[in-house]
């Protein structure tokens, strides 16, 4: 996208430069050519291609039913992140997920609007009071990923960060149990 945009930008700048440096160059270009090629055909083709690509990609990222995904709940409140796991255990400030498999985060709205975002794992989704939104993430390898609240939520907005900790899929349940029982550091 960046390359395409740069090319378009350079193209427009070049036309502008020609207009200023070589006055009258376009005096014999019929106006309809500007409309049809510049105004309709060129953006039409570029944008259609982009739109089809975008919609296809978006479709692929959706949490389609049927795929097996590990599901956790996120309950952000002013100004901390609370996560709830299938067994009912909770952690605050750190989200534990298995690596190498899709994870559905059900983001549940509580007080004001927050937004769940782990930049390196995927897009963001808002936590809207009264609603539950689901986002599907996959951490390819174990590790620690930074997460933020990306919707402005008041005085503590800046500090409302969390860590997504991806564990090896095999030992995940055990690691999670250890963390939740307080045996391992959170």
């Amino acid at each position, binding site marked *: *996208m960046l390359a395409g*945009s740069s090319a*378009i*930008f350079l193209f*427009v*700048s070049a*036309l*502008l430069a020609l*207009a*200023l440096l070589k*006055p*009258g160059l*376009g*005096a014999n*270009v019929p*106006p309809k050519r*500007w*409309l049809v090629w*510049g*105004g*309709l055909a*060129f*953006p*039409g083709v570029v*944008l259609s291609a*982009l*739109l089809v690509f*975008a*919609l296809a*990609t*978006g*479709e692929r*990222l959706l949490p389609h039913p049927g795929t097996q995904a590990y599901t956790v709940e996120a309950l952000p409140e*002013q100004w901390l992140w609370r996560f709830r796991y299938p067994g009912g255990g909770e952690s605050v400030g750190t989200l534990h997920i298995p690596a190498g498999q899709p994870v559905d985060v059900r983001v549940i709205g509580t*007080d*004001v*609007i927050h*937004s769940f*975002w782990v*930049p390196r794992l*995927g*897009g*963001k*989704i*808002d936590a*809207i*009071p*009264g*609603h539950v*939104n689901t986002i599907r993430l996959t951490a390819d390898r174990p590790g620690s990923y930074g997460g*933020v609240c*990306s*919707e*402005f*939520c*008041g*005085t*503590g*907005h*800046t500090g409302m960060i969390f860590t997504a900790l991806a564990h090896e899929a095999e030992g995940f349940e055990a690691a999670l149990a250890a963390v939740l029982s307080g045996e391992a550091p959170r």
Partner: protein
Amino acid sequence: MSQVDLPLVPGDVAEPASGDAALPPKLTAAQRGLERIWATPPGWGRLSSVNHTVLGRRFIVAAFVFFAIGGVLAMLIRAQLASPRSAFVGPDVYNQIFTMHGTVMMFLFAIPMFEGLAIYLLPKMLGARDFAFPRLTALGFWCYLFGGSILIAALVMGVAPDSGWFMYTPLSSNVYSPGINADVWLLGVTFVEISAVAAAVELTVSILKFRAPGMTLAKMPLFAWYILVTAGMMLVGFPPLILGSILLELERAADLPFFDPTRGGDPLLWQHLFWLFGHPEVYIIFLPAAGILTTMIPVLARREILGYSWIVVAITALGFLSFGLWVHHMFTVGIPHLAQSFFSAASVLVAIPTGVQIFLWLGTLMAGRPRMSVPMLFVVGFFLIFVCGGLTGVMLAIVPFDWQAHDTHFVVAHLHYVLVGGFVFPMLAAAYYYLPHVTGREPLYGVGKLAFWLIFLGFNATFLVMHLTGLLGMPRRWAVVPEGYGWDWPNLVSSIGGFVMTAGFALFAADVLFQIRFGRRSKPDPWGAETLEWATAIPPRPYAFAAIPAVSSRTPLRDRPDLGAALERGEGYLAEPRHGWQETLVVGIADGRPEHIAVLPRPTFLPLLTALAIGAFVLSLLFKLYWLSPVALLLVTGLLLAWSGQAGQRQDHGPLSAGMGLALPLHAEVERPATWWGMLFLLVADATLFASLMFGGLFLWLVAPGWPGPAPLDLPWTPTVGLLVSALAAALLGRAALIAVPRSTRLAAALLVAAALAHALAAGCAILIAATAVPTPTLHAHMAVSVAVLGYVALHGAIGAVLAGLGAWRCLAGYVSAKRSADLRTGALWHGYTAAATLLALGFLVGLGRLAPLRELAVP
């Protein structure tokens, strides 16, 4: 016929003859007469001005002052974010700063700035002496000034809004923002919005009706087309936000749970209402700037614009398509992907009419021989910056990309490229282009070039690198730059760039002041432009044209280069002043055939006083002095009624000479004067507000948690039938009065009194229904929406009663005759609309009551 005291003007008393070129040429006797009629009184009398040239200048100056305030706030933001260690305020103050920066720039700078430009320029471009409703222009200015002052005063006192310029609930609800900060935003901005809707009505009617004879819509300057589309968009785009603000203020003040998810409300409703306004708003800001570019580019390129008709089609399409994008601000709130695809596709589609314009401008430049000048420099700056902003805009319209970039600094960079590139640069170009027109003086270009380079380089230093900051993941609205993410150096570059840009703007301001004070007198049409605004004297006289020209092409000054001098000599329509009337011509909408003469109101303090009374009402709500609110409201009503005394004629004049052998009736004696059209467009805005309210009800029914509510709503029979019958009766009586006028104005007055009573009865019934059927509206959003709908009906009944009463008074006071029945026609529009809205409202309440239980069938 009104007897008016006319002030003396220079030239009345014998002046020493002088050949000094620095003095304006001597006025003819007719011009001195016009000057006396149209002049704004000196001293305190300046506050009574209703003249478009004066008010246009005031709008522009006030908007620039607010721009400076917004700029200072921006500098505070950049100082805070310059480095991880430079934060000097805590998050509570920082939140106020960035909220106010956005609010000031959007509501107090951008919109009023283009309004000011349009107000100053349009009548002159269209060949009219003023707008259709000069007092409304003045009221709009005062509302804007007072509303803006409330916001700035709150900032100075440290209680400015702090929930972001988008004011998302529940953060802005009274649970999470208990102070008056949010009320300041809701009330202050709504106050300013009154001004915007007033301007939209004013601009629409004036463009359609107040033009020079012969100027058909196909020969109208493109700038007027742009503003026509913009004004139309404002009529439909602003009401959702006004409604949202009213509902949120009702929630904060009276605990009506429209947005509270625990009681059947939904915060998403606010987002829909806000962005339903907020995205068209971007185009509302861009279109006037594009219009001024379309005006300047052909002149600077010395070549007629390519594709006049195509541009008309492109901006019409833009006006519509831009309403189909609002959810692209909400791609992360959990809306189905298919629904997102509609908005995504519309966001991509909207780029095409924009592209058409860009390429037609480029084509015009390439076909002509552009000359380098300061306005041209800013036009080039516009192209470079705006195209970048447009391209990142297309990126953001792509849903998966937006899921990443949303609410990061990438978006901040994008929106500044679009708004500064697409609005500020064209405005700066226009400033240098039109300054000779406003001041009558030649600019000193050296300083302007330096200002351009400082602004252009500073801007790119600030915002180009900010794309990177965003892609590196820095979220918006963080009060400090944390260390260790690689965000330090891009923020430092942005801050340095920001200060360079500010220096550029300061230089621009100094340059303008310098030019006003020291510039040499300019010749009449310094750019060799061919449109009518350059046929006025510069600086323009209060009456703009000493005589109104006949127009036969898009380039009147090419047809007749000496047109300006000819008009000064009185060769045109309405050249002879009479009766102390401010006269201008009104033409047919499409064909530009002269239809009648409008006599416009003279300077008056009423707009100022009315705005002060509205201000008192707003402040009473802000400080919760609810006992004062009805008093202030009565005062507003009384003052608005007083406006009526200065308008209209008490006798039939028949056709009057308009000069050039043309005889036309006065506005009071035609079927559809400007007021009729004004009412029509006001009702369009009103209907949009009502439609938004009904959309809100249905949206909550479908989406909000906690539906159906605790109890079904039962409309009591007697008052419901009473409401229906009396609303219909009011409309019919209003019509009947119109039919009765030729027979007897006393009969018409009696019928109107009956209509007023019927309206009052309807309002009473609506209140009774609300009181009996919805005893506790705070219980559930269904109840709250029902009360809001009934309140809307009651308010329209009450206003209808006042209008009908006013009509009766005007019948008895002699303003109405068989020929002069337009007042009643205008009133009949309101009565008819109120009846229709009442019918619809009752249907909506019954329907929502029936639908509510169905929600239980919904898939959770």
